[in-house]
């Protein structure tokens, strides 16, 4: 049976000062998807996420998130943003960061004991309950990303969006992070923007390639043509083998 999409892009265009950033984007995400979006720098990956989250509006076309406008539908989204958007000079402890994920327009003040227990539960999910009362600045990059993953689970999301989650993270921490994502996969759809192509091969169910236009065929591999077109150059082997592939098998 065909599943109802939770996110749809219908002929979406986005331009800045008449310069096209995204052109004719069509996309459909279902509740059990795990999509990795790859593409070169400046290809529009973060812009795509900003459109999904309703931070910016499309120049033309329509976006539906949980059958609503993105600004309304985003209450069901868990979001892990890029590290540089956070103010690490701000003195804040891990537990306070995680509990921030339960703030809503109607709940702007203090947290209840229930919020704290939920935050500790999600911290234990990412194996960081021991550092709950430490300043976030004292954690490694990999640990910080797991804290932000715990925060993004606080609103019980149906769609988890990750923007470069393993950027500035060492490879061992990256592997650990993708293992955590695998454990979340049955509970929510996941959409991840990344440069880490080996991780795409390990973690994602489907892969899309974005460079102003989107190549996405709801499959676990992209053709070499798609990749080369997106990166505007020839791309050599990235990863082969099961369970998932980024590129399809060579003909020879």
């Amino acid at each position: 049976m065909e599943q109802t999409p939770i996110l749809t892009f219908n002929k979406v265009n986005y331009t800045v000062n008449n310069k096209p950033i995204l052109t004719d984007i069509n996309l459909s995400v279902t509740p059990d998807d795990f999509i990795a979006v790859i593409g070169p720098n400046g290809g529009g990956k973060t812009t795509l996420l900003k459109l999904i989250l309703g931070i910016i509006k499309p120049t033309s076309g329509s976006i539906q998130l949980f059958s609503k406008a993105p600004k309304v539908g985003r209450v069901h989204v868990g979001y892990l943003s890029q590290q540089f958007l956070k103010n690490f000079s701000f003195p804040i402890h891990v537990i306070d960061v995680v509990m921030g994920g339960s703030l809503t327009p109607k709940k702007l003040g203090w947290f209840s004991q229930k919020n704290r227990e939920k935050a500790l539960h999600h911290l234990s999910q990412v194996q960081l309950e021991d550092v709950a009362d430490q300043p976030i600045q004292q954690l490694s990059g990999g640990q910080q990303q797991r804290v932000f993953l715990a925060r993004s689970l606080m609103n019980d999301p149906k769609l988890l969006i990750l923007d470069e989650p393993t950027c500035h993270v060492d490879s061992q921490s990256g592997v650990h992070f993708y293992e955590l994502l695998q454990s979340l996969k049955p509970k929510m759809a996941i959409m991840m923007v990344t440069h880490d192509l080996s991780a795409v091969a390990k973690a994602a169910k489907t892969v899309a390639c974005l460079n102003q236009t989107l190549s996405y065929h709801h499959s676990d591999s992209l053709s070499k043509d798609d990749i080369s077109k997106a990166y505007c150059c020839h791309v050599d082997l990235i990863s082969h083998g099961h369970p998932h592939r980024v590129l399809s098998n060579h003909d020879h």
Partner: protein
Amino acid sequence: MITNAIWFYPLIVGCLAAVVGGLIGPYIAARRLTFLTGSLSHAAFGGIGLSLVFGWPVLIGALSFTVALSWLLVLIEHYYTQAKDSLISAIWAVGMSIGVVCVSATNQYSANIMSYFFGDLLFTSQTDVWLIGSLAVVILGVVTLLYRSLQLLCFEPEYAVIRNLPTIRLQLVLVTMIAITIVILVKVVGILLVIALLSLPTSTALNITQRFRTTQVVAIIVGCLSVMGGIGLSLVVDIPTGAGIIFCTAALYGLSLINRSLT
């Protein structure tokens, strides 16, 4: 009686100012609003000048003018993001200029005007205590009620947007509290020294602690100690109280730096 002592009301108002400065200073540091704070504190002179021309109570006139400018800054910044620094500079200069024109019109170039630049804590009245006390209670209430939201706004504003928090209204609340704090501190240390009393206790606290609430508490303690020390200095060695307070704040900041380098 202790209430008749020359230092009694100044001490109360100085400590109230230290409380609001300690509560708001860490937000200014976290949101990197020091330039905006400098701009608003100087622009407050425009409100003082208008009050002198129209015969309004100076505290109320300065407060209304500074709050209005702070709202203007937030709203213009929201709709025209690229103009931020120029706008802050413009408000700084235009506010001061309005003050200069008004003071010139009232022919009040005197020690009275100098008190707005360097503070006049030792001339604090009982009315000042009640007015500044009420404002301090308002700030304490708002900061307590919106503690978590303001924390998220400072740590990651974009995430606050995605959680559908009313970020513009929260920013308006924050700059309103900054404007109120500035006007209270003008009474204590004067326009030219406000920025020091808002930033140094917070910087001292940040050298000691890494939790936001503790930062606020330590900044309040540092502010109160500085006020006590400053009043003491001004009574014992006869220097202006505002400058004495700043010397004490700077000394405590220096000690915190030494402590940090030793630990």
